[in-house]
């Protein structure tokens, strides 16, 4: 075990898999010599050579298209899109191609690709370095969407994503890369070092896709979250004293529906938290599922804590970001009924 931040844990996953499997290729903008703008692919070119970890033209559509072609041939590409905000030029490739290649060819061809994408706010990145577009992809049948919240999960989930024979979008909460963030911008940065989930084995291990993690057990309300919001929610729970159960979904496709239903049936209340804007966000899907499956157990309306229905605004980062106070307010509303 070594204490790793999320960047190091992801790097360790890539390194371990590249070492084991020569069919794994890594490419993307600035990932080669430079090791990525967030340093996740640091030293991989040096270690595995120019043809296994290389820079690409600035063409997200081209990156994903060539990854699909390589994957169809039999390789296992792991590509980086520099920011989730810039995945949209690749949207057609992901939606019309990666997601459906297997289905439409009856298994003749498939796309065993992993698309790594730093996402989320909290870094004063304005509208084009802060977005959380997971709902757009969750809506696409045939794509998996994984979102880790800590170094240990990041490594285990990335390894599972790489080994998965279907296309996986791996959303990395960039605000958590180098330290813990609880949605309290005035607090000093908390390094990962002392966090139990920063204890990351050097060797390969897997966390299955579609298995949620119960971060905290409780009986008053179930809080569903993923990525950065897991820590925001936990901090909110600790502050307000409500005995909430917190579930880190880890992946939204596949979704651990059993864990959600079991918990909400027990607590009778549900709060859903995500950074993305509210309308049509993934919280809407979760809310519908909970209502469909737990209706007779619900004792209060389901609450959503999300970004507002505006683009992500630069100066209003902390007015937009769904911080701990908003999670507390929502949990309290569920207790009042």
């Amino acid at each position, binding site marked *: 075990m070594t204490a790793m931040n999320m960047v190091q844990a992801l790097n360790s996953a890539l390194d371990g898999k590249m070492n084991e499997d020569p069919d794994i290729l890594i490419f993307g903008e600035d990932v080669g010599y430079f090791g990525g703008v967030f340093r996740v692919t640091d030293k991989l070119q040096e270690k595995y050579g*120019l043809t296994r970890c290389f820079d690409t033209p600035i063409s997200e559509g081209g990156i994903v298209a060539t990854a699909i072609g390589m994957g169809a041939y039999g390789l296992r590409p792991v590509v980086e899109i520099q920011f989730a*905000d810039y995945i*949209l030029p690749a949207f057609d490739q992901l939606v019309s191609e990666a997601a459906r290649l297997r289905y439409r060819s009856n298994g003749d061809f498939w796309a065993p690709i992993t698309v790594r994408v730093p996402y989320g706010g909290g870094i004063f990145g304005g*509208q084009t370095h802060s977005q959380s577009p997971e709902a757009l992809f969750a809506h696409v049948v045939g794509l998996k969407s994984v979102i880790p919240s800590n170094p240990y999960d990041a490594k285990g989930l990335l390894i599972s994503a790489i080994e998965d024979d279907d296309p996986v979008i791996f959303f990395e909460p960039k605000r958590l890369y180098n330290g813990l963030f609880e949605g309290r911008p005035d607090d000093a940065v908390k390094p990962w070092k002392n966090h139990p989930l920063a204890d990351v084995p050097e060797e390969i291990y897997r966390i299955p896709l579609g298995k949620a993690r119960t971060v905290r057990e409780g009986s008053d309300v179930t809080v569903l979250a993923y990525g950065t919001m897991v820590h925001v929610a936990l901090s909110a729970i600790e502050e307000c004293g409500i005995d909430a159960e917190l579930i880190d979904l880890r992946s939204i496709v596949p979704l651990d529906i059993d864990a959600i239903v079991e918990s909400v049936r027990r607590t009778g209340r549900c709060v859903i938290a995500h950074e993305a804007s509210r309308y049509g966000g993934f919280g809407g899907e979760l809310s519908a599922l909970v209502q469909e499956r737990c209706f007779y157990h619900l004792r209060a309306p389901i609450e959503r804590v999300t970004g*507002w229905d505006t683009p992500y605004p630069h100066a209003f980062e902390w007015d*937009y970001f769904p911080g701990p106070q908003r999670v507390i307010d929502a949990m309290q509303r569920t207790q009042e009924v």
Partner: protein
Amino acid sequence: MKNRTELSLYVPEPSGRPGDEPDFSNVALQDAGEQRCPDTLTPEIELRDMPYGLIRVLDDEGKAVGPWTPDLPADHLLRGLDAMVRTRIFDDRMFRANRQGKTSFYMKSSGEEAIGAAQSLCLGERDMCFPTYRILSWLMARDYPMTALGNQIFSNAEDPLKGRQMPVLYSARDYGFYSISGNLGSRLGHAVGWAMASAYRHDDSIALGYVGEGTTAEGNVHEALTFAGVYRPPVILCVTNNQWAISSFSGIAGGNRTTFAAKALAYGIPGLRVDGNDFLAIHAATNWARERALGNKGATLIELVTYRASAHSSSDDPTRYRPKNEDKAWPLGDPIERLKQHLIVRGDMTEDDYRELYEDCEKRVRASIREAEAIGTLGQSKPSVKAMFEQVFKEPDWRQIEQRREVGY
């Protein structure tokens, strides 16, 4: 099975990395004055050699030579120089302001100031440019208030974009400056559409769009070029080839197989390759393309060969991926020094005059930034949170209204 060798994957590499000597021998140069200057209405088919040459006017001594020499009065050149110098000083000060935590982010255009300045002064008031984040000198040349730039960069209460945009992603319609987005390449098609609209209305306004050489790889860019070739709109499409795209050298965008200007050939539009550090050459080539556009002959692609002399942005450290002192070794020099030298050679300026101009620029920049700082830097002052919910649509819908109330505005 003759002439076969085992296949291997090719990945291009730059001529140097940290620790290596700078080497620009792969940049195809041509001496000032050598490139021919065809008539602006020449059919495209007769222009197909142009993308491989290099239009240059200023020679090493600062003399203007050759057929592209524009006939520009001294005050035009001085205005350009003033804009370039203010851009450089403003950039340096704002970069430092970022280091002091006064702004979240900054991007300099050092080494590339001639481009926006020359083109801004060449185009008309009603023409529209579709800029990248490295075209600040366009606004400087049109005397956009520097305090307003500062307010945007600090996201303070007077920010003309109401705190919604990251620093330097300006918008200034009245100055012929289209809204910048962080997404690369996505506005080149807007420039083409703008120009198509102008043609449709039998107007006389043209559009000018920019992308970096790295960005030429985006599908958006090729879509824009296709439309520009098909509909022959009055548009000038510029590739600012500053050799680097963050840590990726221009070869990663295909730049060591051919020139970026030569991309034009496949779309059936003229491509000009221009010394991007030569104010006069930029003006001349832009004016050529403008005349051609206004002659209803359609689009031109212009590659501006330049060098990104500083870091990609305030979040970047170029010493990690490119040779030290590359900027000093750049064969096309410093655009400010070259224009200054030209004015001196022409007899329109002395070293003392330049010093005076520089000090005056410094004074104006300093005063403007002070004024913006007095309103407030990042976090000290910001527009009303109400602004977060405005301009999503022309009229807010119930979501913005409800949510605005929820936060108490």
